[in-house]
C-alpha cells in the first residue's frame, strides 16, 4: 500500500523532540530493519529553550520504557529527586513560616479505599492535611531521598520524579536515541514545506540538502510552532484571561558550599504578581519568577527575584544574570492536523506551577506511539481522538492551576484580587468548587480513564490552602468507614514518617552513592 506510515519525522531537538523520538522509536523498533523509520531534524542555529527542570513521577516509567539506565541518567543530567512541591506564602501571603503547604507525590495513606480527608476535618486545627495523611512531608522537611542505595532503579520507598538540567537532559536523550534506539539525526533548518495535493505535508524543505520526506510529521519546534502554527495556521487559544502569568525571569545560582543540602521538592513562593520557582540540582539551584506583565513591570519583577535570592546567596543576589522569557499562556485549537501533530511548547504552554509541560509531552508521545496509525486512511480517526483527549487534558490543567489562585486569601495586590474575578474562573472549575464545598474530592471527580490529576491532588491543594468542605448532612457508609479506620491510618502515617526519616539517606548522600556505586536493576 502506498500510504502506509513508515517514516516519522520529528522537527525540533529540545526535550519534547527527543522524548517523542525516543518513545516512538522504542515502541516501534526503529533500531531494527523491520521497524519504523524515525528521523529528527534540528536547526543548529536555534537553541532549545533550556528551562523545564521539574518532572512528574511519570518520567520514571517513560525513561524505563526507552531502555534508559536510571544510574546513567542521574549521573549525566545533574539529576536530583523531586518528591512534590511546597507552596510558600500562597494562603494569606506574608513571610510567616506557617503559610505553606505540600503537594507530595505519594498518595494519601489508605487511598483509594479510604478517604482520610473526612476524618481529618476533626483534627485540622492540630495537623496539616498533607502531614496527617502522607509520610512524605516529614521526608521532604528533612531533605531526604525517596529511596536508598539498595532500592532498585526506578523503584521507590516514596513516589518521586526528578529535578534535572534541561540542556544536559536533551543531550543525554539525543545520545540514547541515536546510539541505541536507531533515531536518525539531521542538523538542518526547516525553511519550508512541500505540500501534497490533499494538503498533507509531503516533505520538509531544509536550508541545505534534499527535502526530507515523511508520512507523519511531529512539530516539536517550541514556541515557533513551525509546522502546526506557521504552516497550517492552526489558531492559538490564549488563556491569559484565566492564568495571567506570561513572563519569566530565570537564573541559576550556586550553593553557598558544594555539599549544601539539596531540597527534595520544588519550592513555589508566591509574590505580588506571580510566584518564584526554586529547584535544587546537585550542582546548582535553578530559580525563576513567573509573573503577569499586566501586573508587574520587569524592573519590579527583577527586584523581587533579587530580594528572594538575597537570604540564601547574599550579595551575589545583586549580581546574578537574569534571563527573560515571554510566553502567551494557552494552547493550539487542535494539536493533530492532517499528518502533522504538535508536541511540547508548539502545542501550547502554561506557567510551570505544577510542572505539567514535560508530562504532557510524555502523554502525547505515548499516545502517538501506542496508537500510531498504520496508514493515512486511519490517521484522521486517531487525530480526532488525540485532539479530544488533549483538549480535555489542557482544560483540566488550566482548572487545576487556577485552583491554586482562587483559594488564596491574599488581597495585597491587584494580581491576587483580579484572580478572584468571576470572569477569570472557568465554568468547569467554578462548578467543581461548588461541589467541593459540599463534598470531598473523591473518585467521582475522575471522569476519564486517563486523568492527569487524581482526586488526591485536588485534596492536597484544597486542604493545604485551608478550604472547608461542609459535613455531609447524613451518615454515609463510606464516611463511616473512613472515620472507623482513621485512627489506625493516621498512626500508620506517623509511624511510616518516623521510620522513613530514620532510614532514608539525605538527597545529596544518595546521589553521591549512586554516582559511586550505581543503582541495581533488581
Amino acid at each position, binding site marked *: 500500500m502506498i500510504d502506509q506510515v513508515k517514516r516519522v519525522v520529528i522537527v525540533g531537538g529540545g526535550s519534547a523532540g527527543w522524548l517523542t523520538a525516543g518513545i516512538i522509536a522504542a515502541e516501534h523498533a526503529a533500531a531494527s530493519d523491520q521497524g519504523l523509520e524515525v528521523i529528527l531534524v534540528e536547526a543548529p542555529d536555534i537553541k532549545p529553550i533550556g528551562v523545564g527542570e521539574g518532572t512528574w513521577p511519570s518520567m520514571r516509567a517513560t525513561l524505563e520504557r526507552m531502555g534508559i539506565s536510571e544510574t546513567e541518567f542521574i549521573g549525566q543530567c545533574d539529576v536530583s529527586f523531586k518528591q512534590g512541591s511546597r507552596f510558600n506564602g500562597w494562603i494569606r501571603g506574608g513571610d510567616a513560616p506557617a503559610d505553606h503547604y505540600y503537594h507530595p507525590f505519594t498518595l494519601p495513606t489508605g487511598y483509594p479505599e479510604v478517604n482520610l480527608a473526612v476524618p481529618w476535618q476533626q483534627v485540622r486545627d492540630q495537623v496539616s492535611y498533607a502531614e496527617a495523611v502522607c509520610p512524605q512531608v516529614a521526608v521532604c522537611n528533612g531533605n531526604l531521598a525517596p529511596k*536508598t*542505595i*539498595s*532500592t532498585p532503579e526506578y523503584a521507590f520507598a516514596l513516589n518521586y520524579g526528578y529535578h534535572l538540567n534541561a540542556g544536559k537532559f536533551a543531550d543525554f536523550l539525543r545520545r540514547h536515541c541515536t546510539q541505541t534506539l536507531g533515531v536518525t539525526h539531521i542538523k538542518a533548518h526547516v525553511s519550508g514545506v512541500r505540500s501534497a495535493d490533499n494538503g498533507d505535508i509531503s516533505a520538509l524543505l531544509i536550508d541545505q540538502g534534499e527535502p526530507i520526506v515523511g508520512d507523519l510529521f511531529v512539530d516539536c519546534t517550541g514556541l515557533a510552532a513551525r509546522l502546526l502554527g506557521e504552516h497550517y495556521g492552526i489558531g492559538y487559544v490564549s488563556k491569559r484571561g484565566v492564568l495571567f502569568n506570561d513572563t519569566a525571569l530565570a537564573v541559576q545560582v550556586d550553593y553557598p558550599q558544594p555539599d549544601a543540602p539539596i531540597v527534595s521538592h520544588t519550592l513555589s513562593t508566591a509574590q505580588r504578581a506571580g510566584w518564584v520557582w526554586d529547584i535544587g540540582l546537585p550542582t546548582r539551584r535553578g530559580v525563576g519568577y513567573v509573573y503577569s506583565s499586566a501586573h508587574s513591570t520587569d524592573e519590579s519583577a527583577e527586584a523581587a527575584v533579587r530580594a528572594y535570592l538575597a537570604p540564601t546567596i547574599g550579595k551575589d543576589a545583586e549580581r546574578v544574570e537574569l534571563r527573560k522569557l515571554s510566553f502567551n499562556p494557552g494552547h493550539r485549537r487542535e494539536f493533530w492536523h492532517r499528518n502533522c501533530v504538535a508536541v511540547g511548547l508548539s502545542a501550547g504552554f502554561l506557567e510551570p506551577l505544577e510542572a505539567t509541560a514535560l508530562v504532557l509531552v510524555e502523554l502525547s508521545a505515548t499516545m502517538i506511539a501506542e496508537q500510531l496509525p498504520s496508514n493515512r486512511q486511519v490517521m484522521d480517526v486517531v487525530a480526532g481522538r488525540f485532539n479530544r483527549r488533549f483538549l480535555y487534558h489542557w482544560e483540566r490543567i488550566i482548572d487545576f492551576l487556577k485552583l491554586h489562585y482562587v483559594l488564596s486569601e491574599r488581597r495585597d495586590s491587584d494580581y491576587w484580587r483580579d484572580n478572584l474575578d468571576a470572569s477569570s474562573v472557568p465554568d468547569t472549575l467554578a462548578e467543581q468548587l461548588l461541589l467541593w464545598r459540599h463534598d470531598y474530592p473523591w473518585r467521582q471527580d475522575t471522569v476519564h480513564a486517563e486523568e492527569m490529576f487524581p482526586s488526591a491532588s485536588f485534596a492536597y491543594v484544597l486542604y493545604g490552602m485551608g478550604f472547608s468542605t461542609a459535613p455531609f448532612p447524613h451518615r454515609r457508609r463510606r464516611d463511616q468507614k473512613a472515620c472507623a479506620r482513621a485512627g489506625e491510618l493516621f498512626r500508620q502515617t506517623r509511624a511510616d514518617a518516623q521510620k522513613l526519616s530514620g532510614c532514608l539517606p539525605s538527597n545529596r548522600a544518595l546521589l553521591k*552513592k549512586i554516582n559511586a*556505586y*550505581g*543503582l541495581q*536493576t*533488581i
Partner: protein
Amino acid sequence: MTSHQLLNNIDHKELRVITKRAAEYGDQVMFSPTFPDEFRSVQAHYPIFFYKDNATGQFQAAAMFGFSTGENLFLSDRGWDATYIPLGIVRQPFLIGFQEFQEDGVSKTQRVIHLDMDSPRISKTEGESLFLEYGGNSPYLEQVASALELMHQGFERAPTFIAALLEHELLESFSLDIELNDGSNHQLQGFYTINEDTLAKLGGDQLAALNEAGWLQPIYMAIASQSHIRDLIERKNLQMARET
C-alpha cells in the same frame, strides 16, 4: 564505633584471642558474607543467598545461619555445630587494612593486619597467643593471616562474579515462606538467589564464557546449597521444641 589498630608485636605482644564459638563473642549472627572461592566449602553446610550491602547497594553472597537478625541456628552451648565455619566468622577479630609506604620515592600501599580492639574476643588471660616469645608470629596468627589473605583475594574477585550474574540476569529476588512444626509462619525477605530458569536458557557461548571466567562452578555450588534451607528449618524446629 570500633577501634581498629595496626597489629604489631610490641603493643599486642601480650594479647590473646579467644577462639571459642559463642553468642557472647559476637557469633549470634544471621549470616556471614562469603565469596565465590569459598562457595565449595560453604555449600556443604549452609544455604548461600545474595543480599545488597546497606552502604553501597552492591550484591554480596552470604552463608546463611538463621532466618532473622541475630539468629544463628548453628550456635549452641556446645559451640558451632558444623565442621566448616566461614572465613568471615573465623577471621574475627582481625581484618585487612592498608598501609601506605614509600618505595624508591613512589608511594605504594600494602596489606596489613588490623585488630578490632573492641572485640570481646580479645583477652590477656585466655585464648590463643598471637606472638611467640621473641616476637615471631604464632601458628594461630599465621593461620589467621592466610585466612585473611584468602578472603582478600576472594572478595576482590567477587564483584566481577556479581557483574557476570547481573549481566546474564542470573540473580532474582525471592521470599521464603516457612511453616514451622508449631504451625507458625515466617517470611524471609530481601535475599536473592540464582535464577535457574535463566541459567537453563543460556546458550553454549555464554556458558563457555562463564566457565572460562571460573564462575560456572560457584553458580552451581550456590544452587546446590539451597538444599540446606530444609536443614536450617529443621534446626529451627528443633530449637523451638527444646525451648518449649
